[in-house]
């Protein structure tokens, strides 16, 4: 098993790193995304993540496979949360292992960049005076 994909309420950095750790790869690059406490200076009280889960899992799997076949990655884990989250909490973890650390960094960055563009997950920000689906409007 070289790919771990999951969407669930709680995720940890450790489970992603543990999955990709192999004695034949010296380098693991990881991206950890957390909830920011403000957007454009406005305090965010909490977030809500909605997922079209079956399609999101397929899109995450595509991203993961691309890093294995095209970017020199041996193992990759991509974990994303769903549901309510508070500032500081972890919302996404990507860990990529490669014999070459430059490849691991490149794959990790590719994975988070592509996730943010293509994976059907939506974030709603709750402010003191209302709520907004992020990036919905121009």
């Amino acid at each position, binding site marked *: 098993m070289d790919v771990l994909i999951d969407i669930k309420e709680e995720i940890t950095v450790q489970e992603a790193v543990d999955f990709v750790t192999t004695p034949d790869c010296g380098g693991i690059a990881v991206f950890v*995304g957390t909830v920011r406490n403000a957007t454009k200076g406005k305090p965010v009280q909490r977030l809500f*993540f*909605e*997922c*079209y889960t*079956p*399609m*999101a899992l*397929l899109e995450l799997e595509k991203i993961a496979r691309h890093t294995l076949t095209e970017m020199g990655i041996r193992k990759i884990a991509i974990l*994303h949360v769903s549901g309510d989250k508070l500032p500081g909490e972890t*919302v*996404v973890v990507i860990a990529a292992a490669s014999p070459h650390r430059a490849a691991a960094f490149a794959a990790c960055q590719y994975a*988070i960049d592509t*996730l*943010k*563009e*293509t*994976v*059907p*997950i*939506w*974030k*709603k920000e709750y402010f003191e005076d209302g709520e907004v*689906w*992020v*990036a*919905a*409007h*121009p």
Partner: protein
Amino acid sequence: MKVLLFGIAKDIAGAPSITLDAAPEKVAVLREQLYQRYPRLRELRSCMIAVNKVYAADGDTLQPGDEIAVIPPVSGG
């Protein structure tokens, strides 16, 4: 034909899914029907249609049993 709606599209439609009386032949026709029923969908930065969990182009053909989803701008991560 059942259509799933997510994020702000769900809020605009006021429901997580709607049912169309007939399956439009092409994605472009489906999109036009959705825009007429929910004009606020036009105001979104983008509005993709997924057919059977894969992003579809306007020229793609639809089958009655397809799983359709309205995908407003994603914002995961």
